[in-house]
């Protein structure tokens, strides 16, 4: 019993020690535009406070469509999507990914992708804080 408690305590202590030095992940989610609000809400629910949103065009395996302009046919390969970027601390990265994937899923082709990359450094411009405390 004691062993377990000590194990838990040291795990908790190392958790506390590492606060401020947690690795950081950049979560980049490309989702369908009408899912933006859902994604934003889901991230907010798990404690992610800041996101950057860009309107983008893209395609994966989803094919484009043809349009007509004054009798001339043209192909639109690039479909409108929304890119949501959030820098998160490593400890909540998995739940963030799970949250996004859950709400952005429609089951239909073109739902999008989530990319996860490492962040080397983060700085809060107003205060100069760095590391995961700046997230």
């Amino acid at each position, binding site marked *: 019993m004691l062993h377990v408690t000590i194990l838990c305590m040291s795990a908790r202590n190392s958790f506390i020690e590492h606060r401020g030095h947690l690795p950081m992940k950049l979560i980049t989610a490309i989702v369908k535009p009408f899912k933006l609000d859902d994604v934003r809400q889901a991230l907010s629910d798990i404690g992610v406070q800041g996101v950057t949103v860009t309107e983008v065009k893209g395609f994966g395996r989803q094919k484009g469509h043809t*349009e007509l*302009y*004054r*009798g001339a046919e*043209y192909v639109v390969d690039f479909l409108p999507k929304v890119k949501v970027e959030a820098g998160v601390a490593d400890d909540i990265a998995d739940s963030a990914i799970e949250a996004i994937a859950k709400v952005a899923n429609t089951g239909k082709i073109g739902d999008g992708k989530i990319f996860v990359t490492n962040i080397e450094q983060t700085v809060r411009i107003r205060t100069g804080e760095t590391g995961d405390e700046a997230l």
Partner: protein
Amino acid sequence: MENQIFELQYALDTFYFLICGALVMWMAAGFAMLEAGLVRSKNTTEILTKNISLFAIASTMYMVCGYQFMYDGGFFLSGVDTTGSLDKAAVLAASAENGFDGDSVYSGASDFFFQVVFVATAMSIVSGAVAERMKLWAFLLFAVVMTGFIYPIEGGWTWGGKDVPFLGALDYSDYAGSGIVHMAGAAAALAGVLVLGARKGKYGKDGSAQAIPGANLPLATLGTFILWMGWFGFNGGSTLKLGGIEVANEVANVFMNTNAAASGGLIAALILARLMFGKADLTMALNGALAGLVAITADPASQSALMSTIIGAIGGVLVVLSIVLLDKIKIDDPVGAISVHGTVGIWGVLAVAIFGDASFGGQIVGLLAIFVWVFVTSLIVWLAIKAIMGIRVSEQEEYDGVDLSECGMEAYPEFASSKG
């Protein structure tokens, strides 16, 4: 007492000219918005600059010499009475002589004002056809010649009542200018487009037309609505007077028929585009409305509303076919100006011989006189300007957009920062 009524009639006719002239001036805004909506965003500033500048150039050149060439109004309007030298007794005598049903008597300045806005309309037809690849100053230089000389000469042969060399007086009926204004503008545009060439990438290796979609369809639609409304002044003012029951009825007919023709043109073009392309094409519908307006311009007074709708609808069908045909023969017209104003302008003039009381011979001779004069002189001027300064921007400039090369100013700037 009688003199007071003549004074009132003078004032009313003058007022009518001024209001209609103001409506036609507003068409310049319509053209500007229509064209701005149908070009790419990187070429928007330049086309707006062209549109508003050509209006100013037309107003100036017509004052300098155009009005003289067309109506003997005197260079720099020396022949136009102002209030300073007004001989009121003579004016009242002229009113009495003409009576309420005869020629209207009105202020000379109002006549100039009404005429000058028509010059600007003819010139602005050219700006859409040559969009996205012409040098701005080459265009403005052409505008100086077109508004000061080319248009006034053929206007003089028709509305001015002057004899055409070798042909004598024309037997040509064109109420508000389907041929004199619209086809003339299209002829100048056609000459320009032939010298200029198509936009890069417009026609593929196999010759098929590539779509180059316009950047702002709300503007294009707004422009069409503005033109539609302004056209009430364009056709309505061409009645040239308002006093009296008969004339008032004529004016009312003109407004009603103008609207009817636009409606017919739009519906016909919308349906035809739907049949040909599978979807409703807004840009074709817009061109269709304008085609209807052009078609009725040669005779908006004597037809019934139903006939006007049909005449407009035929214009709407013709414009869609013409746009497709011009692309097939690789004449690149980004906004369809040559089709709307040229192809349908011809139809409008011939329609008067079919449905009205003009003669086929008279209409055709008139059309030929206008077309040959405007096309040939325009061709010469375009080639001359090409030799002097070139008329087409370089390939890189065309790629980057003429907003940057000709105006140094983006229409929709992003990420602009100050230099210092």
